[in-house]
């Protein structure tokens, strides 16, 4: 078998169905083999989109997404997508071609030190130097990408290795002495946690993407209901707990709800599950939840006590550990008083917005939620629309809210929507976008039309790079330095590619446009002309304590 065939056989063994990618000189042997391979291959119009699509596919399905690019510029175009997946712990395999083994280090045509470049943004990477290692490397790569705290793994394959001949030796099991993730919590720590939970009066559950990764959403719900504690989620965690559950407080942090932030700051016990105390969540560390004891459940030991000192660390998979706690817990804390306080905050400081004559972006998101009954998969780009989506779309199910959390990558949402749609063809997939972000991967209209991937894109078009403009308004004296956007006619752009474009300028046309888009079996751009200077509130200024919010407090 050739190296290319070994790679394809290995991908088949891993159950790969879809691959996103782009050909080039140093992957010609691989693409020749792909010609006959049983995968659905999606040719994107830019390698970055291939990486984001693989990432979106992975987030929507829980499977490992795969993308392929050629050496040099093909590989460097993947970088943003790989870094994005790394920051959000998304299992992904990136396969890159490399110049022939004997040319490596020679500044050959389209050569780049891709394993060097991707070292800090992958969970692990490989340069295949000997064809006999190839099958094992692919098996290890999938194992590493999908186990423990998942992440992207890159395999760089010189083109001569793709052409070399060797037998196919597939390892039936993977044993690595240097990599053994801890998946179950230490029983002693579980006992300590249960004791702290039972004796708490004001507990809050703060959960993140780790719960979704682990498939622990049912355990989380059972646990929250059992101890009758309010639940707040990170951006990455949205969907880990039903958005319409009475115990749900919404997202916390910089653009979280006031009641989630107050509850977090006033709790006597924070039960953190699969979340990492990111600076967008904690705000000023010195004042963060001063009176709370903290239980931190995370599969990655290095996430524990990194930003916030933790009282009871538990290393393990969120689903397993929540299961262990549920098994151990006999009594439950009395939280009636606490829930009353929290409900009073919720009533006093609800999320709100005002109609000023133009379409409110928040209204568009609410309408998408109503029309799809929360059963759609939502992806987002990055900026104001992303925060509004997190605030105003009630996410009911895990893996149905897909957003670039850690890296904050504009241009992520559209290709991620394509990936999600490929993984879940029966679902309506909506990319909630801004007029700035959508232009960062707008070329993917061609991919959608060509491959019949009928995703819907709601462009909340305010003519600004809205989030930057908001910061300039609030913190830089209204000096709008390079944030006003000149935009193309998005309807015509969509049509030029063979898609469908709808422009909406009036509030009463919002819902019919959403309904029409869903009924259309094609890629649809809806260009919503929204209130240009609407701000995302509440907002915690950078470096401020998260109970010191500005704006939007009724």
């Amino acid at each position, binding site marked *: 078998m050739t190296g290319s065939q070994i790679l394809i056989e290995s991908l088949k063994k891993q159950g790969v169905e879809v691959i996103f990618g782009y050909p080039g000189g140093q992957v010609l042997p691989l693409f020749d083999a792909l010609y006959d391979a049983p995968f659905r291959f999606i040719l994107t119009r830019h390698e970055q989109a291939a990486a984001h699509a693989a990432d979106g596919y992975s987030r929507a399905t829980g499977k490992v997404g795969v993308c392929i690019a050629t050496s040099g510029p093909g590989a460097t175009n993947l970088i943003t997508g790989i870094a994005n997946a790394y920051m959000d712990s998304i299992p992904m395999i990136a396969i890159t071609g490399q110049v022939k083994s004997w040319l490596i280090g020679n500044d050959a045509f389209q050569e780049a030190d891709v*394993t060097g470049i991707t*070292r*800090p943004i992958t969970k692990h990477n490989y340069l295949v*130097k000997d064809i006999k290692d190839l099958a094992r490397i692919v098996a290890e790569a999938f194992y590493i990408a999908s186990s423990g705290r998942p992440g992207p793994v890159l395999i760089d394959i010189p083109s001569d290795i793709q052409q070399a001949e060797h037998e196919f030796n597939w390892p039936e099991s993977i044993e*690595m002495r*240097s990599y053994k993730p801890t998946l179950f919590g230490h029983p002693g720590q579980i006992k300590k946690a249960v004791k702290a939970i039972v004796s708490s009066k004001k507990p809050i559950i703060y959960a993140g993407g780790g719960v979704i990764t682990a498939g622990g959403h049912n355990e989380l719900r059972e646990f929250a209901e059992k101890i009758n504690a309010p639940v707040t989620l990170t951006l990455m965690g949205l969907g880990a707990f039903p958005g319409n559950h009475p115990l749900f407080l919404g997202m916390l942090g910089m653009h979280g709800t006031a009641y989630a932030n107050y509850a977090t700051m006033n709790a006597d016990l924070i039960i953190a599950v699969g979340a990492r105390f990111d600076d967008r969540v904690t705000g000023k560390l010195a004042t963060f939840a001063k009176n709370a004891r903290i239980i931190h459940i995370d599969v990655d030991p290095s996430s524990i006590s990194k930003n916030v000192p933790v009282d009871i660390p538990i290393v393990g998979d969120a689903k397993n550990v929540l299961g262990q706690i549920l098994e151990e817990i006999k009594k439950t804390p009395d939280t009636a008083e606490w829930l009353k306080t929290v409900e009073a905050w919720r009533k006093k400081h609800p999320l709100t917005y005002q109609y000023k004559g133009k379409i409110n972006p928040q209204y568009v998101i609410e309408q998408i939620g109503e029309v799809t009954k929360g059963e759609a998969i939502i992806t987002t780009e990055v900026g104001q629309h992303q925060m509004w989506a997190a605030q105003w779309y009630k996410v009911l199910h895990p893996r149905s809210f897909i957003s670039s959390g850690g890296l904050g990558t504009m241009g992520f949402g559209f290709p991620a929507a394509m990936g999600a749609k490929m993984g879940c063809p029966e679902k309506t997939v909506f990319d909630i976008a801004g007029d700035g972000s959508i232009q960062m991967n707008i070329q993917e209209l061609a991919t959608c039309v060509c491959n019949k991937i009928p995703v819907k894109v709601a462009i909340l078009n305010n003519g600004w790079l809205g989030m930057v403009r908001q910061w300039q308004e609030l913190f830089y004296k209204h000096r709008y330095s390079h944030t006003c956007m000149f935009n193309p006619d998005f309807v015509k752009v969509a049509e030029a590619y063979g898609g469908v474009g709808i422009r909406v300028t009036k509030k009463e046309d919002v819902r019919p446009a959403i309904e029409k888009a869903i009924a259309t079996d094609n890629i649809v751009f809806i260009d919503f002309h929204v209130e240009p200077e609407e701000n995302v509130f509440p907002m915690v200024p950078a470096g401020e304590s998260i109970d010191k919010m500005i704006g939007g407090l009724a």
Partner: protein
Amino acid sequence: MKHTISVLVENKFGVLARVAGLFSARGYNIASLAVSETLDPDVSYMTIVVEAKDAAILEQIKKQLNKLIDVITVTDFTRKDHVERELVLVKVGCTPKNKAKLESIVKKFIGTVIQCKNDTAIIEAVGEQAQIKQLLDNLEPFGVKELVRTGKIAVAY
């Protein structure tokens, strides 16, 4: 404060870059680093002296090292019974006039004169860092022209 840790790693190409890259990416400081093969040629042994301003940072360094796929074990010598040594080579001025004095000082402070020609002596010394510091202080008057050190290596009992 300086801490000595050892890291057992898979002896594969790129491992040193992974470890060094981790330190630079996360803003940790390496005071010294020594790497070599072990009895098992598939495994390398690194002794790293790190600077960490508090226990939490040292803890993070150890956790982040452990997170690297090619790292097998990380050992912190801070509270461990262990032996540590460093080898230095020093070039100092050496004239027929002061040669005898130089030799007696070197002998007193754990060193050996390896070679003495063309007005220059090369001295070798192996020891703990305090001993090496003492030797270097006493060599100062002869005029230290060049100093090469291996960085610390350490092993636990």
